[in-house]
């Protein structure tokens, strides 16, 4: 009874909570990175001097270069953490939800 199982899952508060938590996490991570990128682009034009500021007095490297590298490191960290969550605790909650509905 496919539709019966579906209904059981849809009315399971555990499932609702999981889906809500997941989509919050996903949109926050993706939105945060998008925001960082487009702020970077906007600042580069409206206030180029902010990103052109040198990292230190003796250096010629503008702060924008290490900042862009930092954004990438954050991206990598977020994907690692999220992939672990999704394959770990989220996956086991999903298994539980399906098992409960089929029982």
């Amino acid at each position, binding site marked *: 009874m*496919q539709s019966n*199982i*579906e209904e059981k*899952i*849809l009315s399971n508060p555990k*499932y609702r909570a*999981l*889906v809500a938590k*997941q*989509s919050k996490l*996903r*949109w926050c*991570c*993706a939105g945060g*990175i*998008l925001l960082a*990128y*487009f702020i*970077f*682009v*906007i600042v*580069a*034009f*409206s206030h*180029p001097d902010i*990103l*052109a500021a040198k990292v230190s007095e*003796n*250096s*010629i*490297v*503008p702060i*924008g*270069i290490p900042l*862009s*590298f930092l*954004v*990438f490191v954050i*991206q*990598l960290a*977020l*994907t*690692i953490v*999220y*992939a672990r969550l*999704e*394959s770990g605790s989220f*996956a086991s909650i*999903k298994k539980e*939800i*399906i098992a409960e509905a089929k029982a």
Partner: protein
Amino acid sequence: MSYQKAFKGLLATATAFLPSLVLAADVVEREPNIKAIIMFLAFVASTLFITYWASKRTKSANEFYAAGNKITALQNGLAVSGDYMSAATFLGFTAAAFLVGFDALFYTLGATVAWVIVFFLVAERLRNLGRYTFTDAAAYRLDRVPIRTLAAVGTLVVVIPYLLAQLVGAGALVQSLFTIDYTLAVCIVGALMMLYVTFGGMLATTWVQIVKAVLLLAGGSIMAIYVMYKFGFSFDALAKASVDIHAKGEAIMHPGGKFDDVWGALSLGMALVFGTAGLPHILMRFFTVPDGKVARKSAVYAMGFIGYFMTIVIIIGLGAIVFVTGRPEFLDTDGDLIGGANLAAVHLSAVIGGDYFLGFISAVAFATILAVVSGLSLSAASAVSHDLYATVFRNGEATEKEEIFVSRITVICIGVVTVLLAIAFEKESVAFLAILALAIAASVNLPVLLLSMYWKGITTRGAVFGGAIGLVSAIVFIVISPTVWVKMLGFDEALFPYGYPTIVSMPLCFIAVYIFSVTDKSARADKERAAYEAQVLRSELGSLED
């Protein structure tokens, strides 16, 4: 197998025309780069071997489109990053760093941000809803026929211009790298692409991409390490030296030189991020791995490789400023860089490792184009056979054999047509083709895919009108942009000031999908909205049967 017989026949033909490649090289005035040609032939030989091996393992539709779901996490991570490391990124982004310095970061960062969007918003649900193409997910609860038609058209108008741009670029590149004839070069790329895809399907396409990704990562690393070694591994010293040598001086360490205003830059940023995220040949790769866990792991690998590559691209570009600028051996009789800024990275390889390393990097650059065009033509073929032929024309009643047959025919048709077009476009500027591909992917494919997966209210009518409006507006605004209106059609002033149409066309698509969906009062629309809950369940938990 008759296919294998045909493959051996074609292999013989392919090897038969290879000597003419070297012969043709002799005709051209400049000395042919024999070492580069030998290394390239070695690459081609190994990919043909891969294709032969893959052709024995490619019989079912699942094997043809998705490599039998047997690709591992590391392999898929390399293949995906290989798609990102196209000639446009390796040669184009290093050229950007070579020419404008700082502003190249918009491109390199944009590419990594695109992958973040795919990973967080698209990958998980796409995999659970689909089998072979992104259309599977978009059409899950909407009316199959119109949505598959829309998405297949969306795929083709993205893939074919992109393919054409790559082929024209390949021809020009090969002309200066191997000093062989443009037409011959385009024919070789087209013929190899058709061979890989028709016989080896996704398995061969993936392995060709993996081999190339490893070679390119290795070659790029050697170049970056050499450059950094020369400056005692101090990025500051490298930056100082490049500022001293570059004609623009300290301006290359200052943002904002490349664009006139912020809207133009935002429009480019949107095309880079959302367009790259909506490229169908990259989305297809999520179906080649066995399960969600492996898919996620492969996405993390891909993130690492893409980010690493985008970092070394900047170092290579700055290194080219220091080591290539002003060297007489890289200048033509007019005093311009041979092959333009796009060959800055290739010239740098000659400085680093002489003829052998130059040959290696040239061969890798050519391999890059081959691997990417193969992926592109496979995704176009899937759109035609899986979405249009099997679902729309045959109403889901085509057998797997018929479907694969149509795929193979499509690959050959697309190959022949794009090769002929590439020959016709030899002297034309094809910059607008790549813009077109990214802009349409950002204004049709990605919005429709995202909304169908995340918005309950979307209806078939909304998706079709929104997609069509996104498509038409992207094309219209490119035509009236400076790239086409002024540079190609010869008008004095562009009607639309920015190079990329995305800042207008992408919001237009979202708005149109919204308006035509919420005003849709049909019974079909109600059914589609009601089916959302079940779709979310499927997209989060996967299939419940087993």
